[in-house]
């Protein structure tokens, strides 16, 4: 059937476009605090983000994807394969267009919420309002408030603790070294738990919650003290910004994890619908979930990598403008709060977004009087775009669906 081959080719193009947009819009969430704090150069940040996103996508990314992301639309609409084919295509295209628009407006949005919104649009056109799981939709709405707020509170208190225990001390360096096992340990603890609970690979290992906690604690303990020994060796007391320097290393670790997890979790936003199209063209029907071939994950990973490097080059152009972002301690607090929020909220079953958590984290530092200048008008605009994401993607998806239905 030549027509379906064309659909598949079109699907690949749109899927790549979606992945590219994910990279361009999301990379800043993990890497901005690190680059802003000058913990790594922009080139290094791009390199790290590209490598980790691809690794995350291919090795940790899910090899099975739900046909309808996040189960927000009832699977009843899946009976007609032709409809699903058009639906997957229009959802993917609508979500990418919205994310691309937001990137063009330079506002970070949630790529997951975009694809969810687009799926809702497709669901409504294909099956009416009754196919929408309103409880799940309510969870999405709740996550707009809960994840930034949660992250804000964590980063606020974490930064206050760092101020009280380290920065305000006479010999900040000694204190930061003394307490480094605690900060490294907590970061490793969150990272290990996230890895076990949140990544598809971790889920396959199926370790029980209690065992996971124990394992995370032991690994955190070892890493904490080993990290202190290594830092002692690398960071010299004579360094006037020794305390910040110590947090620089911890922060890079936390940001690397966010990049890895992003690759693992977000690749499905692009590759999921693509896998559905691929599966439909190959077999002719589709169930509630479809397997994702590794080459598709790699395809998505490369797409994200391309988006990252484009966004990265833009950062390079603009960083010359003396933007005062964050110091290492503040950047660490933001990254830590982001990782923790994403872990806890997704454990609660909320479809959280790294983007929302990262912005909340920055606000927390702001409330703790830790940032020299944050533009609140931009923050309000970002929040408006979070809310607009679902309806905008839904409406676009409906329109594209109708057009594609007419053509195909």
């Amino acid at each position: 059937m030549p027509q379906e081959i064309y659909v598949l080719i079109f699907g690949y193009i749109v899927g790549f476009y979606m992945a590219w947009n994910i990279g361009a819009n999301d990379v800043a969430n993990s890497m901005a605090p690190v680059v802003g704090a000058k913990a790594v150069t922009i080139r290094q940040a791009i390199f790290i983000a590209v490598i980790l996103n691809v690794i995350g996508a291919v090795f940790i990314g899910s090899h099975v994807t739900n046909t309808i992301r996040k189960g927000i639309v009832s699977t009843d609409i899946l009976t007609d394969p032709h409809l699903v084919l058009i639906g997957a295509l229009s959802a993917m295209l609508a979500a990418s267009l919205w994310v691309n628009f937001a990137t063009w407006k330079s506002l970070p949005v949630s790529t997951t919420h975009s694809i969810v919104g687009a799926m809702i649009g497709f669901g409504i056109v294909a099956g009416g309002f009754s196919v929408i799981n309103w409880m799940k939709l309510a969870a999405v709405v709740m996550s707009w408030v809960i994840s930034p707020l949660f992250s804000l509170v964590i980063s606020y208190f974490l930064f206050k603790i760092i101020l009280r225990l380290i920065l305000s001390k006479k010999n900040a360096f000694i204190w930061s070294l003394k307490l480094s096992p605690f900060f490294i340990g907590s970061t490793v603890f969150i990272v290990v738990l996230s890895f076990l609970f949140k990544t598809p690979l971790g889920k396959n290992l199926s370790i029980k919650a209690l065992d996971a906690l124990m394992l995370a604690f032991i690994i955190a303990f070892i890493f904490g003290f080993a990290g202190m020994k290594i830092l002692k060796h690398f960071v010299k007391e004579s360094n006037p910004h020794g305390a910040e320097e110590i947090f620089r290393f911890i922060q890079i670790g936390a940001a690397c994890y966010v990049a890895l997890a992003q690759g693992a979790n977000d690749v499905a936003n692009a590759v999921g619908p693509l896998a559905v199209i691929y599966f439909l063209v190959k077999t002719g029907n589709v169930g509630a979930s479809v397997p994702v071939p590794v080459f598709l994950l790699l395809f998505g990973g490369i797409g994200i990598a391309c988006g990252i490097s484009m966004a990265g080059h833009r950062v390079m152009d603009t960083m010359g403008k003396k933007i005062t972002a964050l110091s290492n301690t503040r950047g660490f607090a933001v990254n830590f709060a982001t990782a923790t929020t994403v872990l806890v909220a997704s454990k609660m079953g909320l479809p959280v977004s790294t983007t929302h958590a990262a912005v909340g984290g920055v606000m927390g530092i702001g409330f703790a009087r830790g940032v020299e200048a944050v533009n609140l008008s931009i923050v309000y605009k970002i929040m408006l775009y979070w809310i607009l994401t679902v309806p905008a993607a839904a409406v676009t998806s409906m329109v594209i669906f109708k057009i594609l239905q007419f053509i195909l």
Partner: protein
Amino acid sequence: MRIPFFNMFMTSPFEGLQEHAEKVKECSLVFQQAIECHFSPKCSTFEEFRDEIARLESEADAIKRRIRGHIPKRTMTPVSTFLIFRYLKQQDAVLDAVEDTLDWISYRSETKMPVELEKDFALLVNTVIDPIENLASMVAEAREYFKSYSEKQRAVVKDIIHTLHQQEREVDKFEDIIKKKVFNMEIDAVSIIYLVRLAEIIGSIADHAQNAGDMMRAMLSK
């Protein structure tokens, strides 16, 4: 700014305050040279110094406008933007007073300083230089404080503010001495007005520096 996430951050107003303070500091040396030149019997470069101050003043003005123009109403800063503007106004007033002094002198450039006042005016000018220069280090130390919020660093800034107060009292004292002397001199009325006003304008430099210190103290409040 075309990067998602990055565009929340903006150029810090403290960056501008520091730049402005450096400009103020730069003018202190020129000011001192201008006054010394004016006191010396054959001074030919006074106007050049005056031009130099005018140039520095207009550069500082540009910085001031840039700071004001780049803080939108909704900006999250460690201290209220209102205080930042009030501080900036005082820091700028220091520079204005320096310029006013040289302008005032230029109106009667042919009048030579009476010999018995030369030493007093030299002392007054010397005392007023330190507070001008202290502003830059005050801003730098304050930025350090906002990074660490350490009590030690807060004390450093408070010390500078305290010094500014002491220096202002010192300047007041010299200003007083000069005015008293002028009124007891056998000179024409216009010269009296000229000299009294000159002492007052120079004195006001320290007043504004002290006010800047007070604004900084308000920013440090917890």
